[in-house]
């Protein structure tokens, strides 16, 4: 069936479902407006930019869920993927 997957790669309907779900859940879980996330994103960019050069257009911030350290509970988590271009020298 791998052959089948090969021809189907990237556009199977379950992948579409998965991606749509992930997006909609970001907002459901946050229980906040998209503006709130945009504001948060803006602030984070501002702070980090003081220390390093980052690729702002590639920055991705999501509210999601993860297992707590003891594995007993599911806790909300803020996951940020911030590609760094260059370190600035202010810290030295």
């Amino acid at each position: 069936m791998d052959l089948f997957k090969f021809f189907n790669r990237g556009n199977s309907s379950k992948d579409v479902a998965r991606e749509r779900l992930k997006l909609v859940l970001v907002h459901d879980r946050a229980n906040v407006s998209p503006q709130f996330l945009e504001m948060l994103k803006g602030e984070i960019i501002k702070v980090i930019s003081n220390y390093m050069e980052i690729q702002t257009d590639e920055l991705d911030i999501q509210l999601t869920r993860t297992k707590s350290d003891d594995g007993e509970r599911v806790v909300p988590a803020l996951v940020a993927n911030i590609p760094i271009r260059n370190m600035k020298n202010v810290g030295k």
Partner: protein
Amino acid sequence: MGEVLVITSGKGGVGKTTTTANLGTGLSLLGKKVVMIDTDIGLRNLDVVMGLENRIVYDIVDVVEGKCRLKQALIKDKRFEGLYLLPAAQTRDKNAVSPEQMINLCNELKEEFDYILIDCPAGIEQGFKNAIAGADRALVVTTPEVSAVRDADRIIGLLEANDVRNPMLIINRIRVDMVKKGDMMNIDDIIDILAIDLIGVVPDDENIIISTNKGEPVVTDNKSMAGQAYRNITQRITGQQVPIMDLEFDKGFLGRLKRLFGIKA
């Protein structure tokens, strides 16, 4: 001291009642003393799915209002040793029972039963709050559809907010043929999104409809795949380690040929 498990989903029609009926029956077959409570007041159905609709005299609202004793309202299922049903009222609304009354009811039943299974209504309003009030554990039922998974996610959040810890997931009505074609989310996709532990996967099986027509839970059918899936879940509830069953079992000629050559399709 018994354990209270609530079977919930958020979205309607994903199989909460069928799951409750089968897990309740399955646990009784393992020799446990079990009571199933239908908390879907106004839209009761666990009675018909169990084939016990003609035996209802009193219901859960009569119990909490003191119109009868708890023992009088419990319907004993004569087919399965140790299995009882506490039906919902059909002519009242969800506000006829309060969360405090549910907690008291659960505590009273815990004294006598090993497992108390609560069939939760769809939605996140009063009926849901009542159903989870006395619960020790939650089983969240979903199907591999965006709407059901989205609602399951919301329910998981609400369970956490209400201190029902560590909910476990049941993925219902999965279709292996569609998963293989990439037209249905698979088990890993759903677990990845919902981030909770899996307790079982139930394949889409027409035997469910046939058995529900007759009012006999499919868990008693040794030939049915769904029945096997429910038996596995009941064992996991009691703490036994049972591997997730292989749903890819292909009965056809091609399937046999593939197995002959060791191809895992």
